[in-house]
């Protein structure tokens, strides 16, 4: 156990190094734990959100009363214990008030509804925390949506005739989580007891009723909803053959619109966590390398006293494990204490609904990474013990033998880093492919940076001519000490790459998920506006000082053929067929909206000329074009209400869908579809809260056929979540940059320390303070600048690649950040080098000689 004692003694004796090592690794691990916890917290938040929208985990519904056999089959398929169920009957009905009437959704509930989420009532408040539900179910009373109360001019306590019976309005629904389920069915809700809804007399032969059962399942229950739906479909087909009677909805499906964003975010955060940890690993390895080099002499003595390289190895290993464990424990402790404090510290700054708790998994992983990870990172340096020869003690400077280590040992010491990194990348990115590409990109970056460094340093020899002696020495230093300089270049370059990579991807992703501030979010969407109603509609809303925005024609057409080939593939599944031959909504526009950008091809010029030999131009949304396998030059033929119209794709465009502007997959050049029968969609923005219902009513009363959809509620919900994600991404990016800067400091410090002898020699030879300072400035200035430039350029290329692979081509260049990174890294390299040099310069040459 001698080596264990020695290891502990070494740690206490080298307190400064130990502290640095722990701090450095600790920062990386705190970042990692924090990122992981954020990730889980957001995951959980979104999951709860989607559950509260569906009010359950799974819903089974049918147009016919659900039978015992259907329940049994569905429950067998879920294959888990069912915590609770809630039954519901719902249908639309025309409800009359004293003056007018309005189509409404009648919902019959039992005393388990809602199993997730809550309904907020005007008088009783939270349904979950009051006995309002029991009173509703056991009496002939109803709760009525606030909008409907206003529209029908109703008061609490009024009697409302529904079907054959009359009901008392007991309360007003202020918030109803399920109201966001169906965007298009904009019919206000009336809740009543399950028994009462059956007594309305409206459930008759021919009535369109939805019977549902909502299931609450254990939180541990995990499933792939697509797979579950497929199994459900198979089961249904087995029982009912071709007739589709049942439908199943899972909460995951409810949040499918957010699923894509969530998927991106998880992958992204996972990779950031990994980069933060990798940076910490690099920093720790550098610190260790500096420390290790200074301990060669002690080890050589140990070996002289009969120790074997194996024992020296063990001692160092134990030392690393102890330090790594302390780092992990400290990091976990800090994270454990700080994370729950975050919401208190940043009250108002943290997104709504955010609860941050420590994940046990993250802790275990941190501990593992702290111990095993630090060993793995230090392995290549540790392997040098085998090259250490006690005879070195008789040399002035103890160094491992300079003969190249056996390639097998090289492979053995570097491959664990690579393999661990690779596995972590695949795990964090949730994909073998993405993880592998990520690691391969990383390796490629190392090779490219190494090549650039070699070329630049080679070039330095050519510029040594001239009068300035300091410049000459600096350039020759770089050129002669090429191996050391390359590793320094590589480290700074890699650091810059990682530091710049994060904000680079962050920007692209944030642009995608966050609500762009320069778009006004519409309050209302309107559909089914007839061309001859436009003037009247405009007048109606102008009366209340609002204007129509994003007015777009919408023409219904059926896609007939692509490049002259009729779409008819017998191999396609019915769903695919439906997608391909579906009726499409086309539009035409002369200029792009501000939420659109051409990504390939050219914009069209003006209106299509009927006499031209060219086909009219078509612009496709880029993802749609990809799904359909179409590109520029392809032709598409539509049956536009019995008239064949053919066009050629001349450009594809990106659409910022979350600008909440009406956008279309297929847009025609003006001049082709103009006379076709069409309706318009439009939006109204900037409507005052107090004006909403009145404005909606005046449109509906003047032009009843126009569907007016209040999108504020839906938009608010999506924005809430995207805000949260953007926030987390920003915080994580800063954390990683901070970890990167710490690494950069460690690297520069190590490199200067390794120049110890040279600087000393210069001083002995009579160089003054400013000469040495200048040499260091030039050396690290050149290294820092070129390494940062190369690293940042590579990061741009890599971020583009990553965006293309993972984030569906979302990439945007942020010149400000890029320039800042280069300047900052260059300045930091010089500054760090100077700080490290300063301590050497302040000492007298004789003292230096003594210390060595």
């Amino acid at each position, binding site marked *: 156990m001698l080596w264990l004692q020695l290891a502990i003694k070494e740690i206490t004796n080298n307190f400064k190094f130990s502290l640095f090592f722990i701090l450095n690794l600790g920062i990386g691990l705190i970042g990692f734990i924090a990122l992981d916890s954020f990730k889980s917290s957001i995951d959980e938040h979104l999951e709860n959100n989607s559950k509260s929208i569906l009010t359950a985990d799974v819903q089974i519904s049918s*147009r*016919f009363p659900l039978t015992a056999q259907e329940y049994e089959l569905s429950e067998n398929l879920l294959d888990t214990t069912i915590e609770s169920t809630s039954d519901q009957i719902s*249908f*639309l*009905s*025309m*409800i*009359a008030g004293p003056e007018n*009437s*309005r*189509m409404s959704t009648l919902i019959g509930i039992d005393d388990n509804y809602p199993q997730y989420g809550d309904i907020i009532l005007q008088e009783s408040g939270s349904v979950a925390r009051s006995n309002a539900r029991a009173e509703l179910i056991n009496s002939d009373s109803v709760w009525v949506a606030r909008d409907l109360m206003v529209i029908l001019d109703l008061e609490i306590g009024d009697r409302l005739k*529904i*079907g054959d019976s009359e009901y008392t309005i007991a309360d007003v629904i202020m918030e109803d989580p399920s109201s966001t389920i169906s965007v298009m069915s904009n*019919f206000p809700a009336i809740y009543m007891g399950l028994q009462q809804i059956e007594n309305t007399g*409206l*459930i*008759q*032969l*021919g*009535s*369109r*009723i939805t019977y549902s059962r909502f299931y609450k399942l254990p939180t541990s229950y995990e499933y792939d909803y697509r797979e579950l739906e497929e199994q459900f479909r198979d089961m249904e087909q087995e029982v009912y053959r071709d*007739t*589709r*009677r049942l*439908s199943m909805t899972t909460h995951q499906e409810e949040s499918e619109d957010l699923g894509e964003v969530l998927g991106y975010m998880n992958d992204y955060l996972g990779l950031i966590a990994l980069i933060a940890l990798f940076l910490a690993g690099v920093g720790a390895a550098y610190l260790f390398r500096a420390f290790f080099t200074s301990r060669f002499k002690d080890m050589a003595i140990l070996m002289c006293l009969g120790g074997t390289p194996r024992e020296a190895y063990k001692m160092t290993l134990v030392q690393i494990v102890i330090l790594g464990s302390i780092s992990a424990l400290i990091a976990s402790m800090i994270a454990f204490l700080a994370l729950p404090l975050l919401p208190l510290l940043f009250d108002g700054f943290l997104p709504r609904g955010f609860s941050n708790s420590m994940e046990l998994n993250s802790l275990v992983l941190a501990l593992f990474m702290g111990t095993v990870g630090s060993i793995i990172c230090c392995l290549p340096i540790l392997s040098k013990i085998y090259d250490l020869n006690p005879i070195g003690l008789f040399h002035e400077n103890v160094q491992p033998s300079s003969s190249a280590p056996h390639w097998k040992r090289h492979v053995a010491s570097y491959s664990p880093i690579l393999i661990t990194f690779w596995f972590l990348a695949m795990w964090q990115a949730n994909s073998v492919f993405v993880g592998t590409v990520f690691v391969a990109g990383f390796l490629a970056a190392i090779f490219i940076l190494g090549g650039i460094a070699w070329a630049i340093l080679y070039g330095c020899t050519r510029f040594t001519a001239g009068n300035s002696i300091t410049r000459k020495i600096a350039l020759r230093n770089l050129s002669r000490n090429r191996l050391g300089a390359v590793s320094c270049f590589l480290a700074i370059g890699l650091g810059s790459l990682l530091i710049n990579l994060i904000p680079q991807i962050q920007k692209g992703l944030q642009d995608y998920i966050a609500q762009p501030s320069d778009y006004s979010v519409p309050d209302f969407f309107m559909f*089914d506006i*007839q*061309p*001859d*109603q436009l003037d009247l509609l405009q007048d109606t809303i102008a009366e209340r000082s609002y204007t129509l925005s994003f007015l777009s024609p919408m023409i*219904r057409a*059926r896609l007939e053929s692509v490049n002259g080939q009729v779409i008819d593939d017998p191999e396609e599944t019915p769903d695919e067929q*439906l997608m391909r*031959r579906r*009726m499409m909504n086309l539009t035409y526009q002369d200029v792009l909206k501000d939420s659109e950008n051409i990504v390939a091809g050219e914009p069209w010029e003006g*209106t299509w*000329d*009927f*006499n031209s030999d060219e086909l009219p131009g078509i612009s496709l949304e880029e993802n749609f074009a990809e799904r359909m396998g179409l590109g520029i030059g392809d032709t598409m033929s539509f*049956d536009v*209400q*019995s*008239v*064949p119209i053919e066009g050629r794709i001349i450009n594809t465009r990106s659409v910022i869908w979350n600008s909440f502007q009406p956008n279309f997959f297929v847009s025609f050049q003006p*001049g*082709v579809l*103009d*006379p*076709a*029968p069409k*309706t318009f969609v439009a939006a109204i923005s900037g409507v005052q809260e107090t004006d909403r219902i009145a404005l909606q009513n005046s449109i509906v009363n003047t032009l*009843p*056929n126009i*569907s007016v959809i209040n999108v504020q509620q839906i938009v608010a919900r999506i924005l809430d979540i995207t805000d949260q994600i953007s926030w987390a991404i920003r915080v994580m990016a800063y954390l990683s940059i901070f970890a990167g800067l710490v690494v950069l400091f460690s690297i520069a410090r190590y490199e200067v320390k390794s120049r110890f002898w040279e600087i000393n020699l210069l001083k002995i030879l009579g160089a003054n303070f400013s000469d040495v300072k200048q040499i260091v400035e030039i050396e690290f200035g050149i290294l820092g600048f070129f390494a940062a430039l190369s690293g940042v350029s590579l990061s741009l290329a890599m971020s583009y690649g990553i965006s293309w692979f993972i984030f569906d081509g979302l990439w945007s260049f942020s010149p400000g950040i890029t320039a800042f990174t280069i300047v900052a890294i260059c300045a930091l390299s010089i500054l760090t080098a100077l700080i490290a040099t300063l301590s050497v310069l302040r000492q007298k040459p004789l003292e230096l000689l003594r210390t060595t």
Partner: protein
Amino acid sequence: MNKNNFRKFFTTAFLSLGCLAMTLITPSLMAQQTPANDPFTIVFLGDSLTEGYGLEEAESFPSLVGEKLKADNLDNVSIINAGISGSTSASGLGRLQWYIRSQPDLMILALGANDGLRGLSVEEMKSNLSKTIDYAIANDVKVILTGMQIPPNYGPEYTEAFANVFPELAKQYDIPLLPFLLKDVAAIPELNQADGIHPNAEGTRIVAETVYQFLLSYLP
């Protein structure tokens, strides 16, 4: 600027279609040379029920009616399916103005279901249908109106007022009324898609037969 040109284009497009139809029917024309074999165009102005929502185009009821006409050697009759899912009666007039260029002889007006399902004003629907019928009559297009009913859960007053619109209009304009387009199909699960309102392929065949039998007596 090129408005006239577009009109020209669409007129040409329709004329070309017409020419194609002419080429197809020319041999029979030459053989018989009777007025009864003059080209006769029927436009089915409707919604998703007419469009054949969820079905192949060839499975929609206007297409099936077209096939039946062919099978009965009524080759001179051509069909235009002018059904658009989700359309309400408000779109009737504007769309008819588009199809009038193809000079239809008969319009089967099958709009209104979406007005009912969306709970729109019955008076408004009646007025929209009236305008469409007025325009057809003014352009020498004969009209067959198809009646529609909405499910009883919409409430007795509304369902009754809604169903009455069609016979009232038929009486007012003295036009034939097919009392209920979804006769023998509505509310029968086996004949409808999962949504319970759109007929499946089998249901649509019954609708086509109902329409065809009614239509026969109004063909030249």
